[in-house]
């Protein structure tokens, strides 16, 4: 019986992979459902097991089964790993994703699974922490804080109870690596968490997954149940978010697990000292934790060898939006933005010129092609007024209206603000109103109140467009430096970068003539 492999990843399913799988089953094949390979342009994808390895076809539909099975289908990709999109990659974390049946413990073990955990158990907890430190692994959630140092803090904290929390509340548009890993290789994350538990002395862990990822929730729950014996006495629990983006902020996430409103806590205390239920807590992103089994099984040096500057190892970059070869590209730090967008991504899907890319989700800056020389590296992006964030790149072609995108950034902040701090709570709403006026070219005149004779101190003259833009910059300043967390604090990045790099979209803001009067 021919074995074929069809992804069960949510993206593949959204593109029709379930129908495809059924068609092959009807054609008498043994269908193995894997995770996603990570290149959407060739989805729905089917791989046929042959003596030369797995031969991929895609995109293909349910009616293409016969042609695929007799090898005549036009969309023959060949050996999947040899596809140029994959050939350049260094898959440390995503090595198994798309290859194995995500829930098969046998598959996982056959493909190098649990080796990291076994290695960890042979080491003392401190040695495990030291290995993670030596690997140079930095938090993949966006802040880039060294993971080993965080673990050390938790390890050193005295407490009757500690926790490992996985932040799987990946809400940034343009990112999907966490989702793919959880759907495609859940045991890898579980193994990483178990290693963390061993290293810091935590007995229980939580995986907090956003509710927008129902497939990941199901897969992780199933995987946690099946692997319980393998990671005992460490235990794990899946918790599901409820539509609040801000819960991706680590302290809001902890409050949410505790059953509270997902409001951001002031730091200090750090979660590593006083985290979940007031106990020392490792809170790491999915990709950080999933990188750990490789570090333990292959050695810290193998991981640290790759990379650029202080950014060591690989980064699963997600190329998204209006792009031809959208997908997941795990690659060492240092690759340039231009290489990612144009060479690996293949330019826009629409075929029109790239006008802007947003790096790092809704709180990331917009960059024009003029900045495509930037190397993918935490420090380089920070220096350029942006951030890598969760390494999502959203590509826009030249039809994009950047003032509209700036407005959207403020709107998104207003929609998702937890409401705790003032700059974010009120500032985002004022930002939307202000950009609307700027875009309409209709600066604010004196309001009903301001023109009342009683209001002696109020200015009655209308504002100028310049003044409105200056106010927008001041508002961004207040939000950036005044906000409690990154939601309010980073919303100015997309707004200001749009304003800086694309002033022409803000109604002639680039060359403001003096008011005529």
């Amino acid at each position: 019986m021919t074995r074929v492999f069809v992804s069960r990843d949510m993206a593949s399913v959204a593109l029709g992979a379930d129908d495809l799988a059924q068609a092959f089953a009807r054609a008498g094949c043994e269908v193995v459902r894997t995770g996603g390979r990570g290149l959407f342009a060739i989805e729905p994808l089917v791989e046929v097991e042959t003596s030369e390895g797995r031969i991929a076809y895609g995109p293909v539909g349910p009616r293409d089964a016969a042609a695929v099975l007799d090898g005549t289908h036009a969309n023959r990709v060949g050996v999947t790993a040899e596809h140029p999109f994959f050939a350049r990659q260094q898959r440390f974390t995503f090595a198994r994703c798309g290859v194995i049946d995500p829930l098969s413990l046998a598959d996982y073990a056959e493909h190098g699974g649990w080796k990291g955990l076994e290695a960890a158990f042979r080491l003392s907890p401190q040695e495990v922490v030291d290995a993670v430190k030596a690997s140079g692994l930095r938090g993949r959630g966006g802040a880039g804080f060294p993971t080993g140092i965080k673990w050390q803090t938790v390890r050193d904290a005295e407490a009757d109870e500690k926790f490992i929390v996985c932040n799987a509340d990946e809400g940034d548009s343009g990112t999907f690596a966490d989702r793919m890993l959880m759907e495609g290789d859940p045991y890898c994350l579980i193994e990483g968490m178990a290693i963390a538990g061993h290293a810091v002395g935590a007995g229980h862990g939580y995986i907090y997954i956003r509710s927008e990822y129902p497939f990941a929730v199901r897969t992780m729950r199933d995987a946690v149940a099946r692997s319980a014996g393998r990671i005992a006495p460490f235990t794990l629990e899946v918790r599901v978010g409820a539509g609040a983006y801000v819960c991706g902020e680590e302290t809001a996430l902890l409050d949410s697990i505790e059953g509270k409103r997902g409001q951001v806590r002031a730091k200090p205390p750090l979660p590593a000292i006083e985290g979940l239920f007031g106990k020392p807590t490792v809170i790491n992103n999915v990709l950080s934790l999933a990188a750990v089994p490789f570090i333990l099984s292959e050695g810290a040096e193998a991981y640290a060898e790759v990379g650029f500057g202080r950014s060591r190892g690989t980064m699963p970059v997600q190329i998204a939006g209006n792009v031809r070869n959208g997908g997941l590209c795990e690659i060492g730090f240092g690759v340039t933005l231009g290489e990612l967008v144009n060479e690996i991504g293949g330019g826009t899907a629409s075929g029109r010129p790239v006008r802007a890319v947003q790096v790092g989700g809704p709180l990331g800056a917009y960059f024009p092609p003029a900045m495509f020389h930037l190397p993918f590296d935490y420090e380089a992006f920070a220096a350029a007024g942006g951030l890598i964030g969760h390494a999502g790149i959203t590509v826009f072609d030249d039809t994009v209206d950047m003032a509209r995108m700036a407005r959207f950034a403020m709107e998104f902040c207003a929609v998702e603000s937890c409401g705790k701090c003032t700059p974010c709570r009120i500032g985002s709403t004022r930002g939307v109103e202000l950009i609307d006026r700027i875009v309409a070219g209709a600066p604010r005149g004196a309001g009903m109140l301001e023109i009342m004779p009683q209001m002696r101190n109020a200015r009655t003259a209308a504002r100028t467009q310049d003044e409105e833009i200056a106010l927008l910059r001041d508002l961004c300043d207040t939000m950036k430096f005044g906000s409690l967390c990154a939601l309010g604090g980073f919303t100015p990045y997309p707004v200001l970068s749009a304003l800086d790099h694309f002033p022409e979209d803000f109604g002639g803001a680039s060359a403001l003539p003096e008011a005529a009067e």
Partner: protein
Amino acid sequence: MPEAVTKAMPELAEIQTVIDRFARNGMRGALLPLLHALQEEFGFVDPQAVPLIAEALNLSRAEVHGVVSFYPDFREQAPARHVVKLCRAESCQSRGSAAIEAELVRRLGIGMGDARPDGQVALEPIYCLGLCAIGPNALVDERPVAGIDRAAVERIVAEVTA
């Protein structure tokens, strides 16, 4: 409608049954899982359930209300029979979701965030499904749909208004 009506007023005893499952298992921070369970069972979190939840988890009613009102997922009214959640985030915008949104609004005759008065269908915003290179994307009654074009809009509208 009869179904929607019964759904709109789940018996308190039924609510209590669901609550008891959580109150008994001693789960820490059980409020969100419990609210999810209630919503899964009844489609929404009835405000009448709040005192029962508060009692079971030893919280104040205010706390439970604060949590229910914080999270967009939790509804206090029965949902429409069909729900289309269209992604409004940047990646989908870069692939033309604004036009798709306008089309859906026009074809369904309701605004974004609204439900049709007869309870047949609601159009809700969602921010990112993690399918960011194949948008515009939506969840149609929890089923993911990618690459929505005008033809897909027709199919979706037909499905949810049938």
